[in-house]
């Protein structure tokens, strides 16, 4: 699975694919994301937040501009 923006592409790490799918399924509200990730990982909100923060940092160049649906491509 890849992310694409303009001429840049980035492969999504395997361990992050489920987060992309979660977003792709329409979960875009940040609080809801934390809740979902927390549930999925069986962890508390702090660790879920850190997981999501890491995700955002890793793909920041693809997430910072424009809408998420336009950016995500498989």
């Amino acid at each position, binding site marked *: 699975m890849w992310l694409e923006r303009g001429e840049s592409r980035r492969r999504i790490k395997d361990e992050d694919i489920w987060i992309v799918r979660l977003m792709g399924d329409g979960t875009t509200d*940040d609080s809801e994301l*934390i809740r979902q990730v927390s549930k999925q990982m069986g962890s508390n909100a*702090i660790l879920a*937040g*850190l997981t*999501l*923060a*890491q995700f*955002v*940092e890793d793909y920041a160049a693809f997430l910072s501009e424009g809408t998420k649906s336009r950016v995500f491509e498989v």
Partner: protein
Amino acid sequence: MAQRCCHVALFYIVMSYIKAQKAFEKLKKAEAIYAPVIFSAASGWGKSAAVSYFYRRKNVLVLQCRSGFIKEQPPIQSIRQSIVIVEDMQYLANDRAIRYLQSLLHIEGMQVVMVTRGAVPGYIAGEEMDIGLVRITEKDLALGEAEVGAFLADCGVEVDPFLLPAIAEASRGYPQAVRCYANHLEQGEPYSPAMQEAVWEDLFHIWDSGVYRHYTDWFQDFALELCRYDSFTLEMAVYMTGSQRVTEVIEYSREQMNQLFCLPEGSYAFRPEIRRFYCWKQERLWTDAAIRENARRGARFYEMKGDLPNALLHYEKAGATQCVKDILIRNMRENPGTGQYVELKDYYFDLPEEEIEESPLLMAGMCMLYSLVLQPEKSEQWYERIAAYERMPEHPRERRREARIRLAYLDIALPHRGAKGIIPIFRKVFVDFFSQGMMLPEMSVTGNLPSLMSGGLDFSEWSKSDTQIAKFMRVPVEKLVGQYSKGLVTIALAESGFEKNRMSSYEVLTRCNDGYESAAHGGKIEMCFAAVGVLSRLHIIEGQHPSARRICESFAEKVRKTEGARQLLPNIEAFEAWLSLFSGFTDRARIFMEQVPDAFSDFSILDRYRQMVKLRCLIAAQKLEEAYSLAGFLHGYFVSYERTFNRIENEVLQAVILYRMGDAHWKECLLQMLERASGYHFVRVVSMEGAAVYPLLKECKALFKKRDGEGEYFWEVLEEAQKQALAYPDYLRFIPQEKVVLTKRETQVLSMLCAGLSMDEISEQCGISYGGLKKHNRNIYRKLGAKNRTEAERRAAQLGLVHRNAQLNGFGYDATDRIWGGYMNEVETRGEDQGAGWDVAGTWGEPQEDQG
């Protein structure tokens, strides 16, 4: 009964009197108008000798005060002499005698000359303005080079004229000291540092036998207890002496001996030479053990007050090595990130390695210290040693646990590791520590800077997705940084939005205010400074420079009054200097530039903000070579420590320096910087350099024709920089500080121009033709290096020729009259209409006439 003045100092008897020029000039002026004079100087400055010599042919009345009252007090009506000399006035305490003296001061046609070793007493100071008191101080009595030469010659000592400046400086013009030099030189000794020491010794013996023995016991005790300290507060004096009478003693010392001076913020210090004397005396009266005990007591006081450098200094003097070590360990425990490592670095470096290796805390301190002073390899070596310590089962369990905590702390806080990969470290910390109920030491996030983006660590990467990162990291950060988290996320978002020019001014303002309030109530003042930094920058870009300064000044005031906030002051001072640059290269900026130490000889990363402001000052002062070197040095640090934001900021300035040096590489430097900054969409870091960077950006316009894609960022920066350049045209602009010489007429015309009068009004007021006025204008513009009236007004304000507010407020002619008097004194005027041929201040082409 009154007596004829016959008091003559010793050196007046044995030799002819050498006049202290300044003192005599003042005496002459005072005598002409019967103004009262007070001589206020310590023993040996030749006060009485000067008075005796000056009035040697006059019939004077001498009144002695040694016993606390005026010994013989003739009825005022019966005094026949027109000059009254009051000797030893420092002793005067009797109310009746004081009233008598006050009456004398008001008698017309009588001159009173008072001689005191103390300060001007309160009962005289209160009337100083009314009676037109003339003060003669040690500065006036000090002998200059020529006078020292004459003095020595009079003693029969021949000295190489080349030595006179050295002797004058070493003796500080103090006649008693010059006399001692004469004695040594007379015996054929060559002038040398050893002679200087010998003269000090002579003076100490003179003071000891002549003055010290007259002091009260309680003052002697007070002086000996406190002489080892640079300065002291009342509280410290009470602590050291164990006496509650210190206020009285200080008052006594100030009034009767002039030995103490007041420092800002209510502390006191002995005069350096007097302090040296008391130390000398202490060594003769006290045992070594007593001196060490005194040092230990002083150290304890400093330690209680959190002044660790002084505490360590005096513990070391006391030989208390264990106390030194304890403080260093405690500093590491209590202030792991912001401890005064750099000030204390000599103590840390002096500790034997085997002692450091026994303590995970000290090892962590060394690890942090080496990172702060740009030695990351050594820092990593200490990190490895802590890790090895933690792995060894033979070490006590508690200490191994301490080592684990320190390692986790260093993983996050070590400056040279940057912010990259910090989230997995956070995760590890939460899994390993918080889940087990262990806590990390609190860590500073701002590094005492007016910014979070480039605070303790560089958070540029997080700025790319600031709102989401803020949402996801808020709770972990709050948990991790404790009190520092108050206001953190709100201010960080405001700063990120501000830097990217993606947030309205209103939102930035609101967020900063909210963040400030939050930090001010239960948070940390460091965070308030970050909010103040963003708020001030916001005001700057809005063209509200005075508001920015006000915000900063009032915050600085708050910091000065807040205990435990002094660590912010150096960067606040730098911030104020930076703000002043928006008005041109001000005195404040110049003084700041000269104060900041040379980065090449003494640098720690805590100095980076001060050095960046110094760099701007150097550019403004046109010291481009020096600026180039400094920028190169900082570049190395920013790159190796991954300080992206600082790197961009520095690269903007590097491009400006190269541009001004005429080096074609400026463009390459600028374009690389723009590429880097556009990756983060950082607009302000470039555009805030306004007038300095705008010409460079303008020259690159052709490369970014399209206003979309990459061009979009460039044009946004260009437009913002242009706004800044228009609002602050003198920012980092080099303004020659040459003396501008105007004729009287030009001065008059300039004053009216600045007050907003039209050309017609000016020509009418001055009674000159319109053509004649135009000629004056041309000359004024040429001398000021201005192209038009607006620039002339600005230059006049910069050079202090007129008060800037007067122009800005658009005062009318009445106001001009008011400001006129002031600046007429400042401008050096030459003969009427001699404009042609004066030094030209600058060449800006043909002046344009009256635009107002």
